[in-house]
């Protein structure tokens, strides 16, 4: 029963990871932009939702506002931070440091306007009850599963049916050539940021309900997203999502064998192990050396 319980909580954690990781993976996979500020988008989405609820808004509207804010944040960063840097041939690390700067700035802005503590949106969805003997589940688990399945299906469908997925993959390989094909690399970059940032929204909302969100929540999101992206295989959206789910489950299950203070480090052990023994990740193409 303990196992089942841990599995359930693992799935819930994992879904949050999967959603954020998929967003990060999509952006990174397509644009090669190491979007460290993905965590900032997460925090913005979470606070937007919280603030709207505080203002008495009906939750679907609040969700909508949260989507708009996150997507807007993504687009702004793509256009005003990353584009100028990439135009001047900024290296991987130039982008990294700029994105890091943005994260700090966003974090302090949120702190300034919303305070430093953790905020939580109260909801009856998080109250667990005994479903079967010894297994406690909260309705939010079902919501999370439902939302993530719908969202992933939508995104995957969009990417595959609309050829946009192909465009994004091509973008990751050679944006210049994309232009020679007559496609617009800038628009595709923005598209990647729109979808990637949108994916983070449900995760942010679920987190603000189930755990609570604070200005500094972004960094953990970023780390796990990054780990899942690599474990899943760079360029594979499904891989990242599955890896996120898996990391969440393992993080929970692992405490049956190791002490609790190690549970977080285990995700990174796994990351390390993957890089050592299967650098292409679960679904990636073999790494070219």
């Amino acid at each position, binding site marked *: 029963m303990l196992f089942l319980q841990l599995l359930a909580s693992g799935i819930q954690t994992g879904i949050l990871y999967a959603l954020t990781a998929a967003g990060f993976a999509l952006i990174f996979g397509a644009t090669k932009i190491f979007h460290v500020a993905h965590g900032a988008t997460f925090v913005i989405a979470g606070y937007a939702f919280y603030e709207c609820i505080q203002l008495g808004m009906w939750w679907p509207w609040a969700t909508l506002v949260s989507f708009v804010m996150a997507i807007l944040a993504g687009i702004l960063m793509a256009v005003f931070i990353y584009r100028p840097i990439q135009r001047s041939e900024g290296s991987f690390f130039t982008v990294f440091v700029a994105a890091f700067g943005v994260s700090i700035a966003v974090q302090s802005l949120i702190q300034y306007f919303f305070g430093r503590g953790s905020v939580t949106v109260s909801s009856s969805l998080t109250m667990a009850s005994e479903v079967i003997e010894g297994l406690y589940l909260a309705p939010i688990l079902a919501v999370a599963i439902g939302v993530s399945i719908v969202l992933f299906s939508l995104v995957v469908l969009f990417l595959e049916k609309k050829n946009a997925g192909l465009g994004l*993959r091509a973008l990751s390989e050679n944006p210049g050539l994309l232009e020679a094909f007559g496609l617009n690399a800038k628009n595709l970059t923005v598209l990647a940021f729109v979808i990637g940032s949108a994916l983070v929204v449900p995760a942010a909302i679920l987190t603000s309900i189930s755990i609570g969100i604070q200005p500094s929540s972004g960094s953990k999101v970023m780390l796990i997203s990054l780990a899942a992206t690599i474990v899943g295989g760079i360029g594979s959206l499904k891989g990242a999502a599955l890896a996120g789910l898996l990391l969440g489950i393992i993080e929970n299950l692992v405490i049956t064998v190791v002490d609790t203070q190690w549970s977080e480090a285990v995700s990174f052990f796994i990351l390390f192990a993957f890089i050592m023994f299967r650098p292409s990740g679960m679904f990636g193409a073999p790494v070219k050396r």
Partner: protein
Amino acid sequence: MAANAADRPESALEAQNLSAGYDDHNVFENINLDLKKNEILCLIGHNGAGKSTLLKVLFGLQPYSAGNVLLNGQKIVPSPSDMAGHGISYVPEGRGVFPGLTVKENFALALWSAKMTGTVADERIEEVLGILPKLKDFWTRRAGQLSGGQQQMVSIGRAMLCKPSILLLDEPSIGLAPKLFQDLLEPIRAVQKQRGMSILLVEQQVGEALNVSDRVVVMKSGEIIYRGVPADFEGDHTKLMEMF
């Protein structure tokens, strides 16, 4: 063979007094080039003459500092997506394929760019595979795993997909075995004759290129120093090559 007023309506893509370059230096200034409808125009010149730059400017990949670009006699400011929309294809110098995508996916991308779907798309693929039958052999392999020449084949095939009315080819022969180069040029020439297409061909393999060209233009250090027809040289192209 300078363009006179009567030729105007026939022009497909034209550069008028065009100047362009990089950061600090101009590669060419006040250049005039007129690609007529249904002709193959061969542009040759030494390394660094500015041929690729001109092609890039015409396709909108590179900004120009002065002059005009005319498409079918209309003044335009070229941008890659517009040009593609107008049925103009460009084959860049070097490996013009996405190495991580399969040949099929490379094609799908080009079809997407040309907004072709369904049966139209299938027909186009059929036709190109008819021109370049070898493509079938590696249809589902990643382009990056192909040999240099095979990649070049994919690149040209892809450019033919959107049924282009104008084709800009930048040194398609690099890395191609002579037979393959011919195998490539001949069907293109055939298609061109059959349904009409303007081709601007930049080449170093002057002999082969002249065999298929209608006109030839020589560029030297950013200036056009000669305009003529292949017959001027009666097969002895060394004379032409010594011009630059």
